[in-house]
């Protein structure tokens, strides 16, 4: 009896060991490729300790200097999110199969949307800095494209999930496409869209705070500078302020989103 129960279990154990072996081989190959070893970590730890001890106490007198760039960071995120969100409305309508029946239109639009979404925000920023020069405009454009991809994707999925009843009723009484969208789609999709807009804004504040590292405006520029000058106490102050602003915005946006949905 015991034999019969245990017999089928054997190949499973064998497979388990093989999976673990595969994991370990991949890990070892990866650490050889990047020359990442536990020894390096142990050697780096004291340096990390020195870095942290130099960061405290933060340089509080630096706060008035960094307040304006911090405000600029939030402004970049605000403007970029709104423009990206506006751009996302027509595109998400074009992507949704229940609005545009012709696959000839929606498939290419979806393809472009997916391509935009594979490009990370900092990459957009680096390219726009090359085109438009150093400054917040490049950062704003990077945030615009990044949030456009995110909001359009989430919104078109929300549009595809709406209740078809109102749209069918309106088609039956002879509404045209624009009436259909204004009275049948928007009332249902609007709360989701607003919630995604807020969600994108949360992400964008974080993104905007590091855009300055590639020269695209905001607080990141000062962070880069104070790290370059080895003023870790100032860097700590910048990081601290960023954390506080991000936490406050996250909290506010979470409360608003809960009210919306």
């Amino acid at each position: 009896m015991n034999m019969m129960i245990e017999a089928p279990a054997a190949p499973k154990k064998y497979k388990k060991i093989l999976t673990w072996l595969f994991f370990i081989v991949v890990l070892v190959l990866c650490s050889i490729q990047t020359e990442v070893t536990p020894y390096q970590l142990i050697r780096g730890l004291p340096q990390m300790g020195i870095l942290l001890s130099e960061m405290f106490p933060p340089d509080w007198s630096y706060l008035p200097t960094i307040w304006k760039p911090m405000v600029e960071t939030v402004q970049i995120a605000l403007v970029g999110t709104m423009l990206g969100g506006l751009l996302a409305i027509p595109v998400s309508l074009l992507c949704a199969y229940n609005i545009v029946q012709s696959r000839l239109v929606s498939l290419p639009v979806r393809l472009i949307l997916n391509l935009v979404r594979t490009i990370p925000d900092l990459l957009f920023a680096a390219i726009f800095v090359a085109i438009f020069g150093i400054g917040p405009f490049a950062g704003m454009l990077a945030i615009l494209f990044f949030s456009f991809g995110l909001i359009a994707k989430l919104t078109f999925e929300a549009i595809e999930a709406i209740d078809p009843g109102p749209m069918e009723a309106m088609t039956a009484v002879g509404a045209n496409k624009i009436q259909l969208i204004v009275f049948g789609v928007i009332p249902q999709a609007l709360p989701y869209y607003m919630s995604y807009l807020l969600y994108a804004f949360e992400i964008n504040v974080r993104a905007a705070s590091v855009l300055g590292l590639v020269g695209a405006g905001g607080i990141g520029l000062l962070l880069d500078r104070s790290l370059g000058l080895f003023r870790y106490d100032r860097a700590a102050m910048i990081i601290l302020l960023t954390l506080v602003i991000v936490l406050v915005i996250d909290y506010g946006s979470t409360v608003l989103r809960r009210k919306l949905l």
Partner: protein
Amino acid sequence: MNHTLPAKPLWHKIRPWCWVIFLVVVYIWAFNGLKFEGIQSTAKSVSLSILDGFMHPDWSFVYDPAGEDLLRGLLDTLVISILGTFISAFLCIPFAFWAATNMSRRRPVSGTGKFSLSVIRVFPEMIVAILFIKAVGPGSFAGVLALGIHSIGMLAKLFSETIESIETGPSEALTAAGATRLQILWFAVLPQVIPQFLSYSLYRFEINIRSATTLGLVGAGGIGTPLIFALNMRNWNRVGVILLGIIVLVILTDLISGWIRKRIV
């Protein structure tokens, strides 16, 4: 037949307008605050040369036996994100049990766990990356550590939610049979959560691939390093081929990891 709807309270009528006015004021403030005067006059010609570069990618950069090339950069990026995900998947397990409300008897324990996870989450990974670059020097190692530490925030949150949603039956049965806490963990909790853990780790791996492509922009290894050189030298043909490589890598890893995730859960 004089039916009229009951009048809405005044507050309900004006509330949407209050929001609109508030938003308009915020946006006027934001647009006025941003100074867009620093736009280069060469923007148009640069854009044209970028487009030209994207149309004619520098194929010779794809494989170069002598040194830095696209394939090696992409491999580095892939390896950085694999190692980073591995590290965070292991490191976040204790955090996940710390933050799960059903794993500790006292509420404050899981509360502090959840709070420390959200603190880790608000740190942008680029900031984590530059801190590690300062500590261990530029290179892939800083990138691996940055991803490994930053991912803990999100992974441990998802893991702890998984732990909170497990069935209590098996662990109650084990308690009744007199198992120790460690045995309960090993035989009742872990078997229930491991598939979900793996699925979340793969999901995080997809995110990490995207981050790893940009880590090099600040000096943390991977494909971002040749990219920032090419950008600084205005070598648009090379930027074009690198961008193409990144898109292909991201799409491929998304497809493969999505396929594995579907099989696990």
